[in-house]
């Protein structure tokens, strides 16, 4: 268990529900779940979830910390918000799934190499650099995330799509040279660093 993880657990004395309520975005809603299962049945990728939101909520209450935080399931969320609008108890389920995924990622308990976890990281790092997403660099980073050889294979497999987009002027090869960005990208980076610092201070992690 790494230090951050140890610090995270300590004050809760194995009370995982309390840990989630205090440390996970919108976690205070978890206890409101009445186990009806509408979320599970409403998810477009429902079949791909080993643990549906309904199950995750019960697992949290049952104290199954490792099983929840190492689960691949919340990374299957497409952010379609179907579960939110259908939940009879009005739990912000999408946000709780995002919050659990982020918390597991932050504690480094989320499954290593989980594809959505990987691209989420690439996406954020891409936008955090200049303030705006560079779609060309993001696409290339995704293709090459599993190494050079796989990257060439991925890029070749998608070259028809890439060329089509370039022809339609919806992918600009010159973006590789920098492309669109915020004028105040230095300030933008400082602002994100500050926000992260405040958040870590709140979570009790020394930065």
């Amino acid at each position, binding site marked *: 268990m790494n230090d951050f993880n140890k610090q995270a657990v300590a004050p809760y004395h194995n009370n995982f529900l309390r840990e989630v309520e205090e440390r996970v975005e919108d976690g205070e809603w978890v206890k409101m779940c009445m186990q009806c299962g509408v979320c599970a049945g409403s998810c477009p990728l429902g079949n791909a979830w080993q643990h549906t939101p309904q199950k995750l909520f019960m697992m949290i209450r049952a104290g199954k910390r490792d099983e929840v935080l190492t689960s691949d399931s919340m990374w299957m969320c497409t952010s379609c918000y179907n579960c939110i609008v259908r939940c009879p108890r009005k739990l912000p389920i999408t946000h709780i799934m995002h919050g659990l995924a982020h918390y597991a990622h932050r504690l480094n308990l989320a499954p290593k190499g989980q594809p*959505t976890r990987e691209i989420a990281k690439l996406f*954020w790092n891409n936008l955090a650099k200049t303030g705006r997403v560079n779609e060309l660099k993001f696409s290339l980073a995704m293709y090459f995330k599993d190494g050079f050889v796989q990257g060439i294979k991925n890029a070749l497999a998608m070259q028809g799509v890439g060329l089509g987009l370039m022809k*339609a002027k919806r*992918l600009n090869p010159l973006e590789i040279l920098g492309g669109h960005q915020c004028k105040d990208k230095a300030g933008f980076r400082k602002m994100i660093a500050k*926000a992260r610092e405040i958040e870590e201070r709140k979570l009790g992690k020394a930065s």
Partner: protein
Amino acid sequence: MTKKNYAFYPGCSSQKGASASNFPTSIGVVCEKLGIQLNEIPDWNCCGASIGYGEGGLLPRLAISARNLALAEQNLPGQDLVSGCPACWLSTRESAEKLHESPTLMAETNEALKEVDLNFKGTVKARHIVEVLVEDIGFAGMKAPVVKPLQGLKIAGYVGCQTNRPFGIAGESFENPQYLDKMIETVGAEPASGYDQKVTCCGGALAFSEPEKSQKQIRDIVESAYDNGAEMIVTPCQLCQANVEIYQSEINKKQGTKLAMPVVYYSQLLTVAYGGSAKDAGLNGQLIRAEKLERLAGK
């Protein structure tokens, strides 16, 4: 005509040479015709989109949205922030609401905003361009400039997720919203009434990370359009447009289908109906050409 002014938040995909660059072309024509003045927020930044949560915590995400809100508040006072991209709209509106509800989060966010010499007071409302069209202009207003009704065209109105949930357009249902079909009627075309994939998810950002699962969604979305006699799909969402159009060739390659269903924005339909050329409507930006719409535009 006095123009209605809005603080415009284009979003990354609507920039020149980006994946939705044909959207601003057509929405520009539509706004011009309807007396809508979009004033771009100076030096706006990315909203974090629906995938930003993985690496970005709540406060960094609130800060990036608050920077845009504060820039609008300071530079374009009194104007609603308006975005044409559902992800931008959703992230910004969610952030504005969270900040409104929590004085603690507001204080912490403003502490981060100090790094860019900004302060958000919380006076800006975040809206979607479709809300502006439906609520501020109205369907009769949208119909007024129509000079070339798109007669004989049957179109599947694909609303998707984030324009529709969790906020949606006021007065519409989450399960079967009507405004897109009404827009199709407004331009003189026929909505494919039985289209049952209207609010199905295209996979969103998971089109990149979970291609097989997303492409199953996309195949359903396209095949239902065929089944209901549609000649094209229309959508208000940039990511829906890109996913549903781009991956048809991949699905064909892997699954032996012959999908070739054009996917356009509502703004492209309006532009052609308002007498704009195919170029005005950004129809040269389609991967699957909307030939019938191009022909109507050329008449």
